[in-house]
């Protein structure tokens, strides 16, 4: 094969490579990058969707956002879910993974399937199941009243603190098994002999957990942590379907409030909604940047 021919074959192969990745690349450019630029531009505009004009002053929507009590409530709620729910869920997940990684435990497959099962429901489905379970005339109330813990039926979803708590409980229920799967995969990478050695050295369960499992799972923990924060910042289905954001916006999330301002409740305030959504984008982007930085350090 002469050199010229060889080069043309190479070029042909190289071109084929470009053809293969073009559809995916174009789609991401058109469906992610172009819209995010559009969102930024729209966030500086006001008016109805048909006839939008540049805002006066240009930062009008952003100034409004920081003075909007309701949006600030939504930000606060989202961060409350983040700070309370994510640690509880991850600790539970890692504990369960540790217990299920013990080869002496029988029926491990069955336990694993059960705990993982909540992932098989759609977010809307489980939201509605929890809404019904915790309804004023629902099962949880009936049980608590019959046990004498409550004197009369309590409106869990109509009281701010308990409504927030139920969103947190529901989130823990839905996502603990999901995170556990990552930890189980991570634990399988740890040689069982490490544990045997620790046992022989006289380390008890807790010591093994803190000094062997947690450090070895560090990369997985960081990854699940970032994923969970990312998911929490974008919470929508639960807020809409479990509590409808109520009572009086006390459980509403950022995405839900943005939706209400753009497509829900007869308001189509695209400029303002875009400004708020860009705020969410910046939060997620900061998170991703932290992720990259931490990710670089880990090995």
């Amino acid at each position: 094969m002469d050199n010229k021919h060889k080069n043309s074959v190479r070029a042909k192969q190289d071109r084929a490579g470009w053809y293969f990745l073009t559809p995916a690349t174009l789609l991401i450019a058109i469906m992610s990058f172009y819209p995010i630029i559009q969102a930024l531009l729209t966030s500086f505009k006001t008016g109805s969707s048909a006839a939008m004009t540049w805002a006066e002053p240009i930062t009008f929507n952003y100034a409004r956002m920081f003075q909007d009590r309701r949006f600030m409530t939504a930000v606060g709620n989202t961060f409350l879910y983040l700070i309370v729910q994510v640690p509880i869920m991850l600790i539970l997940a890692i504990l369960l993974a540790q217990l299920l990684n013990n080869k002496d435990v029988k029926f491990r497959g069955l336990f694993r399937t059960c705990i993982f099962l909540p992932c098989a429901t759609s977010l809307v489905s489980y939201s509605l199941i929890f809404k019904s379970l915790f309804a004023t005339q629902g099962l949880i109330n009936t049980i608590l009243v019959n046990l004498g813990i409550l004197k009369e039926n309590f409106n869990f979803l109509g009281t701010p603190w308990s409504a927030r708590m139920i969103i947190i409980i529901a989130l823990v229920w839905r996502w603990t098994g999901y995170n556990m799967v990552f930890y189980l995969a991570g634990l399988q990478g740890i040689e069982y002999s490490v544990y045997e050695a620790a046992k022989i050295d006289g380390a008890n369960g807790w010591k093994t957990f803190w000094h062997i499992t947690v450090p070895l799972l560090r990369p997985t923990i960081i990854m699940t942590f970032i994923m969970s924060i990312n998911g929490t910042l974008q919470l929508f289905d639960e807020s809409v379907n479990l509590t409808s954001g109520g009572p009086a916006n006390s459980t509403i999330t950022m995405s839900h409030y943005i939706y209400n301002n753009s497509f829900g409740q007869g308001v189509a305030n695209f400029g303002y909604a875009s400004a708020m959504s860009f705020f969410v984008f910046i939060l997620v982007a900061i998170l991703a940047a932290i992720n990259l930085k931490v990710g670089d350090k880990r090995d």
Partner: protein
Amino acid sequence: MTNTTNMPIKRNKSSIQRRLIPTYIFLIIASFLSVFPFYWMISAATNKTLDVARGKLTFGSAAGENLHNLLANYDLWTALGNSFKYAIVQTVVALFICSLAGYGFELYHDKYKDLVFSILLLAMMVPQVATMIPLFKMMSKMGFLNTVWGFMLPAISTPFLIMMFRQNSRNFPIDILEAARIDGLSEIMIFFRMYLPVMKATYAAAAVITFMNAWNSYLWPKVVLNKTEAQTMPMLIANISGGYTVDYGLLMMGVLFCSVPTMVIFFILQRQFTEGITGAVK
């Protein structure tokens, strides 16, 4: 816990099991709490709303009545059909586009393609809520509202899937590629004839996770599918629950219809589902 420094290598089996009792209790409670809402959903779907409210936990005989009421008041079959159609089409198209890209990025990689790849990964940090307004305008301009196109276009090329296929393509033996070239196969035919069959496991995992995501998606369908005829199962059950008075039996019958397909997949393809979740992380 006792000091086990001088323990015999083979400990008494029953003593091991005895020490595991707290573990079992914890696992049983966790399993019960995980499974109970499912049991309750199914039992509620077979009971009248009054019995559900009273806290009846056993199966009832009102399943037929609930289903009848559900069909009389809501267009269940249309929503179910839509959900299947959208999810299947999205899965097939997404797998094709993303596997092709993952294959291209891994087996034809050079520094320019690697650069494109790292730019694409940036799309992971774009939240759905930030693109929904521009995408809605785009879809309505193109006449894609209430169509499968509008539903799937933003979701058929994802950094997650591309990365998953790229990572798993590392195991694809380059020798096969060279041998096929010598045999005179064109590049695209190598993809179809050589790559596709070898990567079956990755396709299965990617299909499960994509189908689940498509079936369960809610925010974007709510934006792009605003006609009742185009709505999906999650949208339908959300509507049932939105009414002033809720018939719990009917609602849970709807939730059951929305959950059964994903639950069946979960039970049959649990391994692929797990691989799909953890797929791009290696």
